């Protein structure tokens, strides 16, 4: 068991695409984690998607179909990554897929509230796949926090088309697909990242060369972001910082966390009692009907017993006991997650989790999304040292 180099190959990428017909366009969706890439993907593909795993890896994949302008698009949702430097399974999958040339076009979903960090991936993707469009997502959030972005200057400095979107509201998505059609006709010319003279020194080790490349990309991203983004400290940003200080402070951090989680549990258990009782009554009321129905069909005793005392009894018990708590707990937990609270939980608990050879992010494993997949090898206590080799980022905003 373990990853081998031939468990990952072009055939793995090919196996993943659904039935591709002539005239279809394959579009790779790339982006940092938490930029709303999944929202864009879901909004474009609706129910026409299927998820699975990239062969040989523990990274989830998703493929979907979108129709626009009479053309059929196959969207491939690549894992969320910060770069394509191929040091983690997600980065390898993304890089391999882009390098394989299977995608006719790439869309990089960038967070408008954190442009400098996102531009790193945009610049790397443009080098690998010149037919790239930038989807500047979370524009509603950017406006709320007082960001102003000069789109035409950004397009000019990148050499790529930029489409502002607010995927949560569905804004900008059809423009995005139209832009994809345009760049297939007229491929853009991405402005290359200027490299320092030292990068061309033939005596450099590949690792050193890669680091110089990374540094040059970061500096270019900084230059573009400084030119293009105008921001002011708004009331919203200050309020976010104050909330963070409260939620992760020495005095209040843990008590608030325990109180919130206890509150969720209390609401679940208390709230579930009423619908559970009601469902139980409903199922009991229906039982005589089934019983008389089976009797009317002259069903033998063993069948009557199997269906009524067996199947129906178990089904009604499980549904009335399990369904209400789940129907209450998961929406409550989703509220916490969508509010951005869970990374603060990871931040508070990381120290304790590290003491047992785990990682603070594993407090979040209750709800997994493709962009936040945990490599299971990280969960084995005391095994590889890689489990703590990643810093994790806190969402810098509350939604």
């Amino acid at each position, binding site marked *: 068991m373990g990853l081998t180099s031939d468990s990952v190959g072009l055939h793995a990428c090919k196996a993943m695409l659904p039935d591709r017909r002539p005239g279809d366009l394959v579009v790779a969706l790339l982006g940092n984690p938490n930029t709303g890439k999944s929202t864009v993907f879901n909004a474009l593909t609706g129910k026409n998607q299927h998820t699975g795993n990239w062969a040989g890896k523990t990274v989830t994949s998703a493929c979907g179909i979108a129709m626009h302008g009479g053309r059929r698009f196959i969207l491939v949702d690549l894992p969320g990554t*910060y*770069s394509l*430097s191929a*040091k*983690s399974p997600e980065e390898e999958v993304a890089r391999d897929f882009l390098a394989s040339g299977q995608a006719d076009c790439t869309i990089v979903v960038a967070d408008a509230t*954190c*442009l*400098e*960090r996102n531009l*790193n991936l945009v610049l790397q993707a443009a080098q690998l796949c010149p037919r790239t469009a930038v989807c500047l997502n979370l524009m509603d959030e950017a406006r709320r926090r007082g960001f102003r972005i000069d789109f035409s200057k950004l397009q000019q400095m990148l050499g790529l088309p930029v489409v502002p979107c607010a995927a949560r509201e569905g804004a900008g998505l059809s423009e995005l697909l139209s832009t994809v059609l345009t760049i297939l006709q007229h491929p853009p010319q991405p402005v290359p990242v200027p490299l320092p003279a030292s990068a061309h020194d033939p005596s450099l080790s590949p690792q050193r060369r890669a*680091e110089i490349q*990374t*540094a040059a990309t*970061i*500096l270019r*991203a*900084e230059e573009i*972001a400084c030119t293009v983004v105008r921001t002011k400290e708004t009331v919203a940003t200050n309020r976010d910082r104050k909330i*963070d*200080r409260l939620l*992760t*402070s*020495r005095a209040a*951090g*843990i008590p608030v966390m325990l109180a919130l989680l206890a509150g969720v549990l209390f609401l679940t258990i208390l709230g579930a009692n009423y619908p559970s009782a009601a469902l139980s009554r409903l199922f009991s009321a229906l039982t005589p009907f089934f019983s008389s129905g089976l009797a009317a069909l002259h069903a033998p005793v063993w069948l009557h017993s199997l269906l009524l005392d067996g199947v129906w009894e178990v089904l009604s018990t499980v549904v009335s006991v399990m369904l209400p708590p789940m129907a209450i707990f998961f929406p409550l937990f989703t509220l916490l997650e969508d509010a951005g609270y869970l990374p603060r939980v990871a*931040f*508070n608990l*990381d*120290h*304790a989790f*590290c003491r047992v050879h785990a990682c*603070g992010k594993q407090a979040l494993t209750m709800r997994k999304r493709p962009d936040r997949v945990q490599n299971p090898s990280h969960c084995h206590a005391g095994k590889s040292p*890689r489990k*703590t*080799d*990643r*810093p*994790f*980022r*806190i*969402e*810098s905003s509350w939604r």
Partner: protein
Amino acid sequence: MNTGFPSLAELAPGCIAEVRQLHLSGAIRQRLLDLGLIEGTRIQCIHRSPAGDPTAYLIRGAVIALRGSDSRRIEVI
């Protein structure tokens, strides 16, 4: 803890420093470089977690949490 050089771990909340060198190797080094922690980057300590570790830092507009075991090996000035 005396690491022989001024490290990020010693930066107090609210203070700003400039990255000089990363005394790290492997995947964590590449990950930090990709997050923007190159030489000359200004980094601000935001606050520490209730247990003292990890600590939140502002790096190029994003709040990133770093553990002491990593921040102790980042040389700053």
